[in-house]
C-alpha cells in the first residue's frame, strides 16, 4: 500500500493560483503568463511524478487565462459592447467562485485537522466484556446466512470501480457546443425562464457543464435566448427569445466552436500549443469569445 508522497506545498492549480494571488505576488494580468506556467512547471517537477490531473487541469486554467488576457490586448476593445463585458465578468466570476470555494475548504480542513489531532489523543476502550459474558454473546456469524456471506464475497471480490483514473481532460469530451445548443433548445420551455442550474441538472461532468454554458452564450449571441444574472454568484436565468433576429441558427458561428471532435491529434503536448491553436483558428475574434477554453474542453489541450 503505497501512497503518493506529496513533496510540494501546492496540490493543484487552484491552490497555486490562490496562493499567488493572496500573497499579491502576482497580478494575473500583469505577469506574463509564461511566468505563471514556469512557476507551475517548477512545482510539478518537484513532485515525485507528474500528476496527470494536476497538469491537465492547469492547462485548462492557463488556456482560460490566456484567452481572457489576449482578449484584452485586442485592438478596438474600447468599443466592446456591454453584453460582451458582462460575459467577461461572468467568466471571471466562475474562476473567482472556484477560488473562494477552494479557500473555504482549506480553512475548514484546518478545523478538521485540529479536531482529529485532539480526538487522536484519546484511545477508546475496546476490550469489550470479559468472560463469562464474552462467550454469552450470540455468535454474529452464526446469524449470518449463506446468502449474506456470498453477497459480501461478490461485493468484495468484484472488480472495483474505484481505481478510475479520470481522463476527462485527456480523452476528448464527445459533446460539442453544436450538440449542446440543440439540447438546450429542446429543453428550454416555450415560455418562461429556466435556471442554468436546471439546464445542467444531473450532469456531473464538469466540462459538459462548461460546454452547455458556452452553448447558452452562443444562443445569447445569436439572439435566441436571454440571459439574466441578478447577483454575483446568483442564479443564471435563461429564457427563450420570442423573436430571434434569424430563426435559423448561424451555422458559421457554430462552426467557430470547432468541428465535432474526431480522433484526437496526437502531439499537442506543449502549453504553447494551446495559445497557438487558439490564434490560428481565430479564437480571439470577438464573435467567438470563449473559443479557446472550448477548444480545451474539446480535447485539444492535452499532455
Amino acid at each position: 500500500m503505497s501512497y503518493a508522497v506529496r513533496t510540494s506545498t501546492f496540490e493543484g492549480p487552484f491552490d497555486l493560483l490562490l496562493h499567488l494571488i493572496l500573497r499579491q505576488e502576482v497580478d494575473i494580468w500583469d505577469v506574463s503568463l509564461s511566468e505563471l506556467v514556469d512557476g507551475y512547471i517548477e512545482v510539478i517537477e518537484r513532485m515525485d511524478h507528474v500528476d496527470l490531473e494536476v497538469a491537465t487541469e492547469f492547462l485548462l486554467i492557463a488556456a482560460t487565462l490566456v484567452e481572457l488576457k489576449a482578449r484584452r490586448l485586442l485592438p478596438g476593445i474600447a468599443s466592446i459592447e456591454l453584453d460582451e463585458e458582462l460575459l467577461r465578468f461572468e467568466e471571471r466570476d466562475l474562476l473567482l467562485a472556484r477560488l473562494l470555494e477552494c479557500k473555504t475548504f482549506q480553512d475548514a480542513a484546518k478545523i478538521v485537522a485540529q479536531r482529529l489531532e485532539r480526538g487522536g489523543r484519546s484511545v477508546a476502550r475496546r476490550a469489550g466484556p470479559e468472560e463469562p459474558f464474552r462467550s454469552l454473546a450470540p455468535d454474529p456469524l452464526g446469524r449470518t446466512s449463506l446468502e449474506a456471506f456470498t453477497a459480501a464475497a461478490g461485493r468484495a471480490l468484484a472488480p472495483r470501480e474505484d481505481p478510475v483514473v479520470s481522463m476527462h481532460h485527456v480523452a476528448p469530451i464527445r459533446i460539442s457546443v453544436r450538440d449542446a445548443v440543440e439540447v438546450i433548445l429542446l429543453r428550454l420551455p416555450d415560455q418562461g425562464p429556466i435556471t442554468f442550474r436546471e439546464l445542467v441538472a444531473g450532469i456531473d461532468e464538469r466540462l459538459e457543464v462548461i460546454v452547455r454554458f458556452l452553448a447558452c452564450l452562443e444562443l445569447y449571441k445569436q439572439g435566441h435566448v436571454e440571459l439574466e444574472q441578478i447577483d454575483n454568484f446568483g442564479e443564471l436565468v435563461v429564457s427563450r427569445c420570442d423573436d430571434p433576429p434569424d430563426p435559423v441558427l448561424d451555422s458559421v458561428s457554430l462552426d467557430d466552436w470547432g468541428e465535432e471532435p474526431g480522433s484526437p491529434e496526437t502531439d499537442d503536448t506543449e502549453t504553447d500549443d494551446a495559445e497557438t491553436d487558439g490564434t490560428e483558428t481565430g479564437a480571439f475574434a470577438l464573435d467567438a469569445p470563449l473559443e479557446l477554453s472550448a477548444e480545451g474542453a474539446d480535447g485539444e489541450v492535452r499532455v
Partner: protein
Amino acid sequence: MNGRSNETRRAVEAVIMAAIEPVEPSMLAQLIEIPTDDVEALCAELAEEYERSDRGFVLARVAGGYRFQTHPDLAPYVERFVLEGQNTRLSGPSLETLAIVAYKQPVSRAQLGAIRGVNAESTLNTLIQRGYVAEVGHDPGPGQAILYGTTSTFLEQMGFDSLDELPSLAEFIPDASVVEALERGLHLRPDPEPPHAEAIELDASTD
C-alpha cells in the same frame, strides 16, 4: 442525585465498560429501566466525577453514545502502548477532501473532483482506508454514481457526538478582504490601454 439509586449509577458504569462501541443513551435506558433523560443526567454526573477525582480516563459522549476513553493528557503514555503510529497525520490534501465530504455528504467522486480539482481520487482512497469515509449509497440519477459520506469512526475520531457539531461552513467563507484580494488578482480592466498601464483599477465596480 438521590432519586437514582446507587445501583443505577453502577449499572451504567458496568455496561459502558463492557461495550466495544459507544453505548446509546436509549440502550442504557432500556437495560436499566430508567428514562433516557435520567441516563443523560447520570452520565454527565459520572463524567464530572471522574474529572474531579482526576482519573486517567474520561466518560465521553461521541457518535451518539457514551464510552470510556483515555484522558488526552496521557497521550504520551498511551501512544507508547498502542503501537503502530495509528495516528499518523493526514496530509493537507486528504484533510481538505475529508472536509468536503464532511460538509457536502453524500457526495460522488465526480462532485468531489469538481470542488477539490485534483487528486480527489487518491486522497479519497486514503480516507476510505482509514475508515473515515465510506460508501453511503448510490446517486438515483443516471450512472448511479457511488456516493460517499463520513463514518461513525470519523465522528469518534473527531470526538463529535453528531455531524451537527461541525462548525457551520459559513464560518470559513473568506471574508471581504480575501474576496477583494482575489478580485484584484483577477481584475479585468475595461480600459483600452495595454496592460503596461500603471494604474490598478478595481473594475468590479462596474457591475
